[in-house]
């Protein structure tokens, strides 16, 4: 049995001082970031650059003092 562990993908995203943890399923991404590094949560509809592509922020799914998670949708150009 091959066993593979992945402790998440951490990537830089626009406007955030620290790397975010990102999980992508299809064209939807779940992003988790240290909330202490944010001045304000990305607003729904905001376009952010992530993994060399534009993503539209859909909604904030949770926020605590230390953790913010939100979902994004990859925008298709053209």
């Amino acid at each position, binding site marked *: 049995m091959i*066993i593979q562990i992945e402790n998440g993908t951490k990537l830089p995203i626009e406007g955030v001082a620290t790397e975010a943890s990102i999980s992508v399923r299809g064209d939807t991404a779940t992003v988790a970031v240290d909330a202490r590094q944010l001045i304000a949560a990305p607003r729904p509809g905001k376009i952010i650059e992530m993994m060399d592509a534009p993503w539209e922020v859909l909604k904030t799914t949770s926020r605590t003092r230390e953790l913010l998670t939100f979902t994004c949708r990859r925008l298709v150009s053209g």
Partner: protein
Amino acid sequence: MTTTILIATGIYASSGGGSSDVTTPSSRTITFTPSGSSFAASQQLDPTDVLDFVLNLSPLLENDEQFNAVSIVVLPAAVALGFTILTTAPYEPEEVDDSHIRIWATVDEASRSLSAWSGQGTICSFEVTGVTDSNPSRTWQRTGSIRVAQK
């Protein structure tokens, strides 16, 4: 009249596939079933703990079926809080037997004082995906979780 109470707890010892000699109690065993929506360990993890958990995938298998490959991905919210499944010796994941995997979990040292671990703590989740050796193969994906809280 005396009453005898027998308490049996499931424990999993390495069958030789791995290099550890630990046995894992049932309170740190997560059993994944075809139905159901919540697969959690009953024992909590303190953020400073480095503890073993066994993933029991046997209910997902048919007779004589085995898993060829299992991937375990920590979900973003847990990653961001420093929850980690260890990958290096002596805490690398090991195959206890054909349907049980032992993993070791902890929280990164830099994240052990987060308020997320206060009070009830935070549930840290990970996605388990297994592909069987049936022809054609079956793929199962379930989300397991461990609650991390200061004790």
